[in-house]
């Protein structure tokens, strides 16, 4: 059988790509997994006197010599098993148990749950993913249909303009939007006018901030969905469409039974990419200074790594949980791909 690529040939083809991914993605992922099961060695703290331009005071420092040997011996730190996963910063098992026992109602319990940073992050991340992904696909589809129905000479410029929100750097794009949405910026002012409320401020309200972040997410990603669907629309089988028309199918029926099934594989593709990107939502939260109102898993990792004392193990545990989350989200798509693969 000539169809299959021989093992040797296969590996010589994929080798460069595989090497790059192994070195720079797989190994770091492995090291992150290992780190997530470790914590730092117990530090010996001693009281010392510090002096500087503003005088002296008694404070503490780490006795380096005391833990030196231990650190040489076990450079990764001490093995703590799942402790990093179950502590308050992550799954917070004991806090949840406590809340379950003490809270009087479900609302009470949920309130307690949302007070835990990891659950707060996951609540926003899931909401964001669940809302932005389908709306992106719908908006992208609508734009694709509209552009496709426009005059031929207009399509070039329309495609160009429609792609703009996608090509802009997410950090910069959201920053520009953040400036515009300020209560005294042009968009913020327009919103106040529309809502007839001169005090309205998107940045001051949690629900509005969430909506703003999601609107930005859709605005940024819709062009990607659009261009994929637009490409798909170019290959819709004209004969089938015409046959459907002759059979008396209405416009809606033609879209429903010819165009949409044709685009279905593309929807899967866009959904796959979008689920993944939305689950990692990060840049808009930075640019929108949204920390007071929303927190995402990526932003949570960023907080752990960005402080004056970095929490590597905690960030590692959150990263692993993020990957697991993505794997669960993608499971349906993966199963489908597996079936396709078996069929091929």
């Amino acid at each position, binding site marked *: 059988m*000539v169809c299959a*690529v*021989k*093992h040797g*040939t*296969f590996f010589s*083809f*994929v080798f*460069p*790509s595989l090497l*790059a*991914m192994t070195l*720079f*993605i*797989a190994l*770091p*992922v492995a090291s*992150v997994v290992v780190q997530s099961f470790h914590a730092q060695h117990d530090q010996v703290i001693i009281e010392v006197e510090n002096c500087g331009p503003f005088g002296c005071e008694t404070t503490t420092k780490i006795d380096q010599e005391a833990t030196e040997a231990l650190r040489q011996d076990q450079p990764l730190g001490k093995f703590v098993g799942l402790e990093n996963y179950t502590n308050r910063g992550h799954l917070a098992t004991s806090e949840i148990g406590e809340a379950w026992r003490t809270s009087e109602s479900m609302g009470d319990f949920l309130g307690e749950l949302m007070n835990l940073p990891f659950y707060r992050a996951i609540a926003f991340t899931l909401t964001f993913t669940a809302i932005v992904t389908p709306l992106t696909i719908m908006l992208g589809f*609508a*734009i694709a249909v*509209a552009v496709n*129905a*426009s005059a031929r000479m207009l399509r*070039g410029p*329309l*495609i*160009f303009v*429609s*792609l*703009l929100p996608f*090509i802009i*750097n*997410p*950090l*910069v794009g959201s920053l520009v939007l953040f400036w515009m949405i*300020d209560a*005294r*910026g042009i968009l913020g002012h327009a919103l106040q006018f529309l809502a007839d409320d001169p005090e309205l401020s998107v940045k001051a309200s949690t629900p509005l901030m969430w909506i703003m972040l999601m609107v930005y997410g859709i605005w940024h990603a819709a062009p990607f969905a659009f261009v*994929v669907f637009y*490409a*798909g629309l170019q*290959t*819709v089988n004209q004969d089938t469409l015409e046959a459907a028309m002759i059979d008396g199918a209405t416009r809606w029926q033609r879209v429903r039974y010819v165009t949409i099934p044709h685009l279905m*594989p*593309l929807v899967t*593709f866009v959904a796959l990419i979008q689920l*993944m990107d939305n689950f*990692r939502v990060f*840049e808009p939260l930075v640019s929108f200074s949204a920390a007071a109102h929303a927190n995402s*898993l*990526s932003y949570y*990792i960023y907080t752990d*790594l960005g402080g004056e004392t970095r929490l590597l193990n905690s*960030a590692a545990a959150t990263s692993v949980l*993020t*990957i697991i989350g993505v794997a669960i989200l*993608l499971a349906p798509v*993966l199963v489908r*791909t597996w079936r396709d693969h078996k069929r*091929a």
Partner: protein
Amino acid sequence: MSALTKKHPTGLRVLLLGFLVVWVILAAFPFLWTLWGSFKVEGDFFSKANWANALTGELTRTETGGSFTGDGYHGAWVQEEFWRAALNTFVVCFCVVLISLTCSTLAGYALSRSTYNYAFWLLIAALIFRAMPPITLVSGYLLPFFEWNLWGHISTTVIVLVAINQPFSLWMLTSFFRNIPKDLDESAMVDGCTRFQAFRHVIIPVMWPGVITTGLFSFLLAYNDFAVTAMLLEKENQTMVPKIASFLGTTQTKGNVMFAVAAVVSSTAPIFVMVMFFQRQIVSGLTAGAVKG
């Protein structure tokens, strides 16, 4: 579909047209606004006193004498030498696209022709890898890179970006190659070609639409990257996005926001041109099957 266009009833056409107008405004307005604002001074750009100042340019007139000023551009390009960052960005992007496409074209082709299970699992692993938040990856790189003296160089950043880029490119190109009939290369192999010769003589001539589209996506990723470039490049090798971020100031010192705005506009211009130039290819590459699930 175009044949059917004319048959759209008026009501639907108006609806579609209205929708398009709204979308075009939504898509283009922030860009026009930033472009306009980049020729003002900071007080007018933010217009915290009165939003209409951004249009009339009150402070721009009092501070510079004219309604428009090129100070932001002068400051960014001449004073802060933004051109260095622009140059670095183009070196990085060019190398990333070139290397990334070479690797992923070869691998994507092999994956599309392999029926073994490990080919499937490789694709899935690549996909799951893509889910890793880049900040975690980058913080893992720092120690070994410093240890082995790899930190700060453009080449290191290029390789890292290539690696991070691989999953998406692989996924795109594998599905693209799946849509090129197997008979093409296999008949060449029946004629005595090796797998590589078949790839070279039969597949390479027909693969460009898919490769160009994938290349554009790789370019965008490298061009817009912040997490990797900000942490792995030393000052003199800095690319545009981290440079723009450095204009924004820190907690204790004021930045030059207008330099940043001017730099944003400048850095967006090249992709404008590119998208204008390549939009037909993007669509035709995707049409040719680069995205069929």
